């Protein structure tokens, strides 16, 4: 269970997150939606303790993590795994070493058990034949799937995904979305997925939260999101309808601003 209460965060004087609150019950998949740069990834980094909020509270499985030191965070992070946007595989290690990294670091299992767990995880993502490859030899989609296998190998209670389908072709997008669904169905893992891929979001989400300019503007089900008449949400979900006219751009408050064509501007300009 993850609980975010009234989180505020500032970077270089700019308010990045404002009063974000959300509850993610155990075993559920929560999707965080929003445009680029709205603060979605920042939210994941807060959960992982890579960033610290200015104010507010973050409780993970009953333990408050705000104010914990790096060393105290270690036991919290041991329950979690993250799939980074660019996969973030260690490029000096093979796929086998990447997937089994945490298990070898922890040293709690013998070599044979770790090898078995690595093979299982890679089989789950359909990449059992890449064991001895280096990350540089893999395609973008394969890297993402290896990153999911790495997250899976340590059997975490919580998995965080940062744009898992970004930059992937439709087949890999489908494969990755399906993996997230299977983890939910078969392993009952609590998952938080940051994305702006609506198709993926609708498919995997138990609940969605939408962030706009650092502020949570929606928290609810897929159906409730689609029925929302908030102009900011409508613009995000159906830009082809809202921004249909040429020269239309989304306004920061959710409306539409119209930029006149270049020639018109030139005529209006003083001599």
């Amino acid at each position, binding site marked *: 269970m993850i609980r975010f209460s009234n989180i505020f965060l500032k970077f270089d004087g700019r308010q990045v997150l404002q009063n974000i609150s959300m509850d993610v019950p155990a075993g559920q998949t929560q999707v965080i939606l929003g445009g680029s740069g709205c603060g979605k990834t920042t939210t994941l980094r807060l959960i992982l303790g890579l960033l610290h909020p200015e104010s507010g509270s973050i409780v993970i499985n009953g333990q408050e993590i705000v104010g914990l030191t790096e060393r105290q965070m270690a036991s919290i*992070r041991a329950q979690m795994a993250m799939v980074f946007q660019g996969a*973030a595989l260690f*490029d000096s290690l093979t796929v086998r070493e990447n997937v089994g*990294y945490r298990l070898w670091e922890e040293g709690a299992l013998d070599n044979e058990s770790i090898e078995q767990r690595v093979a299982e995880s890679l089989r789950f993502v359909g990449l059992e034949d890449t064991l001895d490859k280096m990350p540089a030899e893999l395609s973008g989609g394969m890297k993402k799937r290896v990153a999911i296998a790495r997250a899976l190998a340590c059997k975490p209670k919580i998995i965080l995904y940062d744009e898992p389908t970004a930059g992937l072709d439709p087949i890999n997008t489908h494969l990755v979305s399906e993996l997230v669904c299977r983890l939910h169905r078969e392993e009952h893992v609590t998952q938080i997925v940051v994305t702006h891929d609506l198709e993926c979001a609708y498919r995997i989400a138990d609940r969605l939260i939408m962030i706009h300019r650092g502020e949570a503007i929606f928290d609810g089900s897929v159906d409730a999101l689609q029925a929302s008449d908030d102009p900011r949400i409508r613009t995000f979900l159906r830009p082809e309808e809202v921004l249909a006219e040429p020269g239309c751009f989304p306004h920061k408050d959710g409306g539409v601003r119209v930029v006149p064509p270049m020639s018109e501007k030139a005529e209006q300009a003083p001599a």
Partner: protein
Amino acid sequence: MDLAVTRIEDTLKGYAAAVQDFAQLCVTAAAGAFRRPWYVQETIYHMNRIGVGSIFIVVLTGIFTGMVLTLQGAIQLEPYGAVPYVSKLVSASVVRELGPVLAALMIAGRVGSGIASELATMQVTEQIDALRAEGTDPIKKLITTRLIASLVMVPVLTVITDGIAMMGGYLIAHFSLSIDTFFYWTWAFAALGPMDLVYGLLKPLVFGFIVCMVGCYAGITTSGGTVGVGHSTTHAMVTSSILILVSDFFMTKLFIYWGW
């Protein structure tokens, strides 16, 4: 005017914050050497990369430094009829100053910039965050291991540079200046006292620390994608070279003050 003052103030604050962060990183990395896990394999791997990988450049640096020093020294000593004692000049200047400084500058170019670019790439591709997410302390795994390797290998490389430089000097002294082998080596060692050994090992220890920590700091504070990686690499090389030269001056001054 106010704007200029504010800018100067911000710049100075920025430098002060960077020095504070650097000092904190140094303490954390050094403290990491005294607690588990030890990462012995990684440390040996970095010793091999830093030490064995740099032998070729320090041998070249040493041999040519020794040869040119002998040639130039002989010209200066000739009016006084002191050419046969050129080995004394070569050994003293190589062991006390040139060996440690030149070896450190070469290592800064090869190793320091390498460390900076490697860590910078890891930083911009989120691999350092991934390490933290996997429960690993990146400072201990990435920096402490490199620091130990540098502190061990830079003095070793400096001793090699010193030895090769004296050998280079011998080649010129014997084959070009016709100085007797026994005479050359007798005066070469006569110029060195026990404190020169301390000099010769203390300086590379400090230089090894500078090269490694400046490279690591530049690497892990990288931002701005691939442009940032290039910037960090250059920054590491320039900063460590300057710090080597400046710290060499102050160490020499201090040693002289203490009467070493």
